[in-house]
């Protein structure tokens, strides 16, 4: 016992070292979303392409819905865009856009220039739906299951690596849940 006490400071310092070392590789910007496990907030907004067309939650059809928050003022969205075009070809998911606090003309031009991966884009000029979703930047991507419940929020750009690591396991899990009739 006496010997153990002598080593206690060393053990404590080592433990502190381990904790701090681990802290180096953590991303302090990464925050769990408050909305995971809740249903998609209700909204009624126009689409990006058609100012007369009103869309609501009911228009987000599909077993696994992805809602991608994007804007033309966001450079990372441009990086992410080609990957979204690829993801849109995946029949397991349905990709919708949420054009967040953007200029309508610029956003329409963007989709013409770079190809439109979205079934449609919700035009959230004032950021009201963004606020309800707890969006604090772009790009962000939400995964919604067949019950309309938000299962994941990913802040940052999607590329092939991120897609494999962050999304594919969840999508496999959701397909399995649907099969089992949950």
């Amino acid at each position, binding site marked *: 016992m006496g010997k153990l006490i002598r080593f206690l400071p060393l053990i404590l310092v080592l433990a502190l070292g381990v904790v701090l070392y681990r802290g180096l590789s953590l991303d*302090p*910007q990464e*925050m*769990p*979303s*408050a*909305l995971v496990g809740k249903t998609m907030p209700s909204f009624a907004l126009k689409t990006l392409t058609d100012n007369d067309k009103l869309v609501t939650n009911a228009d987000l059809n599909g077993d696994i819905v992805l809602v991608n928050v994007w804007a033309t003022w966001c450079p990372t969205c441009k990086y992410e865009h080609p990957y979204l075009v690829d993801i849109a070809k995946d029949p397991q998911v349905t990709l919708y856009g949420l054009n967040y*606090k953007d200029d309508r003309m610029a956003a329409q031009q963007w989709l013409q220039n770079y190809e439109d991966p979205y079934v449609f884009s919700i035009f959230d000029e004032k*950021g009201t739906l963004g*606020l*309800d*979703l*707890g969006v*604090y*930047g772009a790009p962000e991507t939400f995964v919604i299951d067949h019950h309309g419940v938000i299962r994941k929020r990913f802040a940052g750009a999607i590329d092939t690596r991120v897609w494999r690591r962050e999304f594919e396991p969840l999508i496999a899990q959701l397909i399995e849940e649907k099969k089992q009739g949950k």
Partner: protein
Amino acid sequence: MRLISFILLALAFMLTVNPVQASPVDTYEFHDEVTKIRFQALAKELRCPKCQNQNLADSNSPIAADLRKELYDLLQQGKADSEIVNFMVDRYGEFVLYRPRVSQLTYVLWFGPAVLILLAILVVIMIVRRKPVDKKDLALSSEQQDKLKKLLNDK
């Protein structure tokens, strides 16, 4: 002497010069003083989700401006402070609170320091109350004395 007067001068300088206020300026108008004070208090209590070391009052990021606007609107609608805080937490998580609420997640945060202080006091008490070593025990027994003599003689 010169050094001391220099330090005093420097201190006086530091005390008289006001720190530069770099907070963003909003032009919200309030009907009464109380709401204005509540707005300022809440903007200090709520953290900006994007720039994580600043509160809403300090930050110039667009999201902070949006949230200040939302805060203003909620106050104008006559919402209570707790309702506004819940509104923010529902969207941005417990994270937005600079003073986290007491919950299972934050027990360590709230009670950890008190527990550590108690532990430290306990250790101090234990050390203080430890029996002083009896001087008689320090003296060599006759057996040890013999051994010592023998060793010294061997030299």
